[in-house]
């Protein structure tokens, strides 16, 4: 069963801490994404990557960075956690267009981060 695995389901961190959210996919997908989901705001794109060592800012990159050293792993880093970063974080992956007829995103189960 192919999947996207996020390292933690729930996480509680203190304000100012550096936080690492890990995401691993086993589908050999080229593309990986980080979204945050908040009530009433839907899914908002933080960062994405179309290749190893490549990263692009999404719609809300402020306060975040990412790392993609290997194709299967895409890490989201909160440099100095703040309370307004309390949210559900969703990682997703997809194949390149043209490699398959359907290139829907496969999401991980999410990490619910609380910053206190």
């Amino acid at each position: 069963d192919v999947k996207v695995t996020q390292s933690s389901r729930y996480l509680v961190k203190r304000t100012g801490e550096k936080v690492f959210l890990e995401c691993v996919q086993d589908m050999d997908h080229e593309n990986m994404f980080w979204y945050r989901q908040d009530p009433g705001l839907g899914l908002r794109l933080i960062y994405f990557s179309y290749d190893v060592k490549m990263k692009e800012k999404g719609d809300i990159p402020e306060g975040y960075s990412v790392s993609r050293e290997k194709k299967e792993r895409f890490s989201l880093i909160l440099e100095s956690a703040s309370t307004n970063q309390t949210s559900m974080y969703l990682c997703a992956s997809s194949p390149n267009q043209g490699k398959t007829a359907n290139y829907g995103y496969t999401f991980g189960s999410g990490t619910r981060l609380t910053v206190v």
Partner: protein
Amino acid sequence: GQQVMQIPQYQHVQEGEDFTTYCNSSTTLSNIQWYKQRPGGHPVFLIQLVKSGEVKKQKRLTFQFGEAKKNSSLHITATQTTDVGTYFCAGQSGNTPLVFGKGTRLSVIA
């Protein structure tokens, strides 16, 4: 930037009633995708529409892509309690990442 609007935000239906959610993009799309998120779960890919005017069916679910490739709809016939969740549309232009609508939360009253 590209925006995807989705209505309604909430829908409460009696079991057996039909349900429709609508999606509109500010720009012409290369494809539109639909996802379902069960309560407490994560979004799960349902379908992708690529062609102008395309209609696809999955059992009781019917998906349409507008002629201008700027709008889409998802219609569920005779809802069941298993249909409960939030339905998201997501549009894509070229090779840009998906832009998600805010979703329609469906409640089904047995």
